[in-house]
């Protein structure tokens, strides 16, 4: 058994002021080189898991228990500065919305090299050379011009390519891709997906791939965690999840998957009865937690 690079154990989080649970005892492991899919409906808490790893949870949300291990060290035990350094050197995010992920008033170049110069302490020139190389790797035709551009001069797809390049620039060991294609046109989505897979293979990075699209999971993930309302309801090899989904919710997610080969086909919505059953299940779980704690 390979040592996990990232291991989240029993992570629970809630809205501090009102106690609403956001994550409920989430455990998941990402081993080196693996692509781990994190699926679930919008609002399930997928982004919160990514943010918890990065130490970027909104102020309103507090972690109540659990551990996040990165290369054998618990991030939640560390001082903020040390944690930032490790996070900055070892991980990166490919964000959902390429529009808000780039600063409109700064040129692309410096935004790409920030991490290299600040965290890795590279000289500016060396960082620029690396950034140019990566822009070529993401198939940007005129990397010099793009480095000098402002974000609004680039299309959505181009911006996402830039962000992918930036994510891989410091050779992180783990990349969290948070629905990296959701904000893009369908035609661009496929290219971006292929690009991520390509760079991931080339750089031998582990990938935590957040999506609500089972079709994408089927294409690129080795293992999958299915999240519902902050709780992991199923976790398995991607292959077996598709051939033999263990949970009714997973099954309905698979049925609700858009098919690129048959885009006009109407989708089956997730059966409300399944959702209700899940809600009940989680309520029971919360009560048990409550009695266990008290």
């Amino acid at each position, binding site marked *: 058994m390979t040592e996990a690079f990232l291991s989240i154990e029993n992570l629970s989080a809630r809205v501090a002021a009102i106690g609403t649970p956001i994550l409920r005892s989430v455990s998941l492991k990402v081993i080196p080189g693996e692509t781990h899919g994190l699926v679930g409906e919008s609002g399930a808490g997928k982004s919160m898991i990514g943010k918890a790893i*990065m*130490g*970027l949870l909104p*102020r309103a949300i507090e972690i109540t228990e659990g551990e996040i291990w990165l290369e054998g060290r618990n991030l939640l035990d560390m001082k903020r500065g040390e944690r*930032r*350094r490790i*996070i*900055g050197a070892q991980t990166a*995010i490919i*964000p959902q*919305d390429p529009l*808000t*992920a*780039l*600063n*409109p*008033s*700064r040129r692309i170049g410096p*935004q790409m090299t*920030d*991490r290299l110069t*600040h*965290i890795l302490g590279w000289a500016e020139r060396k960082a620029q050379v690396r950034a140019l190389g990566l822009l070529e790797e993401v198939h940007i035709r005129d990397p010099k011009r793009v480095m000098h551009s402002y974000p*609004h001069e680039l299309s959505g797809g181009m911006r996402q390519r830039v962000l992918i390049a930036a994510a891989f620039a410091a050779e992180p060991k783990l990349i969290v891709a948070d629905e990296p294609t959701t904000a893009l046109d369908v035609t661009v989505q496929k290219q971006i997906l292929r690009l991520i897979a390509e760079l991931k293979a080339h750089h031998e990075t582990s990938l935590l791939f957040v999506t609500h699209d089972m079709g994408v999971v089927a294409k690129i993930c080795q293992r999958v965690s299915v999240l519902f309302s902050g709780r992991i309801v199923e976790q398995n090899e991607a292959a077996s999840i598709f051939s033999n989904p263990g949970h009714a919710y997973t099954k309905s997610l698979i049925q609700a998957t858009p098919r690129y080969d048959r885009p006009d086909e109407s989708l089956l919505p997730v059966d409300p009865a399944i959702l209700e059953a899940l809600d009940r299940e989680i309520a029971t779980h919360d009560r048990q937690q409550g009695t266990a704690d008290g």
Partner: protein
Amino acid sequence: MVDRHKLPMRLWLSGTWITLFVAAALFAPFIAPHDPLAQDLLYTNLPPVWISGSEPGYYFGTDSLGRDVLSRLIYGARIALVVAVIAGGGACLIGSVLGLFAGFFRGWTDVLISRVVDIWMAFPPVLFAILLIAVLGTGLHSVIIAIIVIDWTRFCRVIRAEAMQQSRMEYVESALVVGRGRFGTMLVEVLPNIIPAIGVLLSLEMGIAVIVEAILSFVNLSLSSDDATWGGMIAEGRTVIYHAWWILVFPLVALFLTVLSFSQFGEGLKERFDPVLK
């Protein structure tokens, strides 16, 4: 989109007037045909040159003490510019810095600053101004200090909201992850995106500062009426409006155009920059 076309016009016109205004202020000694303070009791209440009874060389006529109206207008621009730059700039600097800190750092910094702003804004501004000048004594210094002390909150509120909105952007988060400190992130990632908003507010505030100074001159709380200020000229012209209208009308028009230009310039900037940033 319709505004696309009108837009440069608005900036153009207001920008032209502001340029003239600034040039007049800066080069007053070279442009003004006469000494603005020199009285000539042989030439009182002369009309502008295009009206019969005028004297050549007194283009906009003279006032009741025989002082050249055009020269006083030009020198009046100096005072207006000083007030616009120092009072407007001062309020802008204090308000924007505090607003930026409050909006970016949140937490107790924000609580503290926002409380102060709330309390500050509870004072009625006119009373506040008169009170301040009563304490500080009349004069240009007092007027400038009063404007800064009263109007910084205007900047603070808006810039705080802008900074807060900007701070929620993902690039701010990722700047923190890539190891820029909080302070550096504020300066590099947040501040540049707020500068257009600051520019808009500053332009509006400069107009406000000019008119506030004029009003305070008018009620004799600013410079003495011997000095060439637009407000003082208006106050004086008011008393002789029926037989020497020009003494009132020219400074009034100058004041109106200047204040209008500052506000239109601000609005123009807002329209110009919003589509790029939002």
